[in-house]
């Protein structure tokens, strides 16, 4: 099996899907000949031509707005937003149009599309090349929201997303774009949307994370193991739909849970998970469900390591939760 990083896996999925289905088109800023600022669309322009890999003017609202029209008309657009931080000019189109089209037309129309966008900090990107805006979209009914943490899932989930009848926000963890490498099968395969994955089994507590924070959580779990604490780790992968069963099963077993995300804490997705878990596991809980997250500030530049909920902060929380 070839070894790939996440960019290569995304690129591979796009290529396979474009070969399979002539309706799949890619559009966005710099995605054409240049192959995207992170090179995720590299080579697609050469293989599929300028009519399927389209550089757009610099206007995210236009990218998503035209993708809506394309989807209504029968294409399967995969728009790229260059950085998740620049998704906001398209927020109106995504929240008011993409998300509601099926519902407001009584199911007559739909706009299936996959909005790919690199998200997250840790690359010295400051305010505008670091944000994790997933919660805004999970909060919007009608959108599916997925965040792979590794190349295998990135490829399999992107293929599933492109074939999904609903619009999918596909957040790519750019901090580990190249660093996260792994074996990826050749050819097409799907990783289902809506299924979390238990990546480490343990009994002391449950750690929940997605995207690049999964790597921090995994490291914290390794360090905790050395101290004799065996953590269970869940890679959530899909935030909407949410795999409540896997979460509840794990927390009922361990009685303790820590949710880790790099978005700010207040109204972050961790708040929703904590609410669900206390509703469904109340009598099994042995400690408060804890959040280790980014702070309620804009994403900083110099102090980004302090801001990010990396392994040392997760480890501290693990110690506190097991000795509660």
């Amino acid at each position, binding site marked *: 099996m070839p070894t790939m990083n996440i960019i290569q896996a995304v690129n591979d999925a796009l290529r396979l899907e474009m070969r399979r289905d002539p309706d799949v088109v890619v559009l966005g*800023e*710099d995605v*054409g*000949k*240049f*192959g995207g*600022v992170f090179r995720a669309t590299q080579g697609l322009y050469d293989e599929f031509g300028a009519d399927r890999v389209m*550089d757009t*003017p*610099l*206007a995210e*609202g*236009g990218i998503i707005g035209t993708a809506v029209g394309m989807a209504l008309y029968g294409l399967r657009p995969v728009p790229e937003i260059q950085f998740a*931080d*620049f998704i*906001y*000019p398209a927020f109106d189109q995504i929240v008011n149009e993409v998300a509601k089209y099926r519902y407001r037309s009584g199911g007559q129309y739909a706009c299936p599309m996959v909005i790919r966008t690199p998200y997250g900090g*840790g690359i*010295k*990107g*400051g*305010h*505008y*090349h670091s944000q994790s805006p997933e919660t805004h979209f999970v909060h919007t009914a009608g959108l599916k929201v997925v965040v792979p943490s*590794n190349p295998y899932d990135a490829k399999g989930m992107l293929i599933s997303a492109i074939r999904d009848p609903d619009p999918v926000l596909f957040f790519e963890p750019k*901090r*580990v774009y190249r*660093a*996260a*490498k792994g074996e990826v099968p050749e050819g097409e395969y799907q990783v289902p949307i809506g299924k979390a994955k238990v990546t480490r089994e343990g009994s002391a507590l449950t750690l929940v994370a997605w995207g690049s924070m999964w*790597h*921090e959580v995994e*490291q914290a779990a390794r360090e905790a193991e050395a101290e004799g604490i065996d953590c269970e780790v869940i890679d959530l992968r899909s935030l909407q739909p949410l795999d409540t069963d896997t979460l509840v099963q794990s927390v009922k077993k361990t009685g303790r849970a820590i949710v880790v995300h790099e978005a700010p*804490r*207040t109204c972050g997705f961790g708040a929703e998970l904590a609410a669900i878990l206390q509703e469904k596991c109340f009598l099994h809980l042995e400690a408060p469900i804890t959040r280790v997250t980014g*702070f*309620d*500030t*804009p994403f*900083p*530049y*110099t*102090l980004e*390591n*302090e*801001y990010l909920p*990396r*392994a*040392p*902060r997760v*480890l*501290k929380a693990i110690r506190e939760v097991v000795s509660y």
Partner: protein
Amino acid sequence: MRREHEVGAVPRRQRGNHREWEPGRFVKEFPLYRLVAEDGELVGPPDEVTLSDAEVLKLYELMVLNRALDERMITLQRQGRIGFYIGSIGEEASILGSAAAMDEQDWIFPCYREHGAALMRGMPLVTFLCELFGNAGDAMKGRQMPCHEAWRPGRFTSISSPISTQISHAVGAAWAARLKGDPMVAITYFGEGGTSAHDFHTGLNFAAVRKLPVVFICRNNGWAISVPRERQTGSETIAQKAIAYGMRGERVDGNDLLAVHAATRRARARAAAGEGPTLIECVTYRVEGHSTSDDPRAYRPAELVEPWKQKDPLLRMRRFLARRGALDDAADERIRAGVREELQRVLKEAEAFAPKPPLESLFEDVYAEPTPLLREQLAELEAAVAADPRVANPRHSDA
């Protein structure tokens, strides 16, 4: 075949008021305004020149500083001493010529290449360099990526990465000045890529509706990262877009310092006189990559760039000044040596600051006063750093 009466028998002359599409029409309607030719000769009407030779010389010195700064910082980035840099190599005349044409009370709403204008407005070089390092001397407290400075004493507003958001801010400031009766004219900068963003439309529309005192400077440098100008707009020129909004448009040789200055000066005068905003297209070229993050060889043939290197705005002003007897080779070398020395000295000064701003600065300025939750989070972070110094250390655990 349908007959006339079947479609409503509209009298012929009312049937449409479109003008036939003639390719090249707008290039003719908006001829490139130029005062100084590439060889340094004054080719425009002398009475349109708005700068004395002494003033040109001062601006030339600033251009030399701006260029040296950009070159040095690109090197620093390659050495890993700063994280990122985005400069204005080849676009200095567009930026400095226009900024210099504004009056002291005027506000500048920059894009991300106008560092020379910040320096012109009195931002100390050391403060600019500290911003690049994001260190304890950074007036922005290490919060933004390099090249996102703000300098309030010089009425130079805060740079944001999201494209074109500053355009409507400039319009709002001009509107406020009008309401307060202040003689302030706002100037704002953006790239030709930025004309595709919604704030370009919104800003120009609002400004024209109210005839607000704004000068819009589009640095048309041909490229938005890898996307060439013709993929950005179907218009032949950027300047012609002004017509649709109901304002003046001008197309200027953006590598001609004198032309940019004169055109901006006129636009400012009209704005101040209540005659409304102007869109100025400075035709220039991005001779380098977009920033230190990209390599233009992946999308742009080198042959395209060569002719523009000959049109270098510094070279042109040097030739102009030489022809006027205001600058000889020895004096030019003195300017360059002076700039090199200054950069070296100030760089040392900037690097002497502590590499990080204090921990509590992370939680300041989110609001005028930190909220109770933010205070709690600061305490949490301090405890975490005390418990494990790795919390504050570079990343250690990528997959």
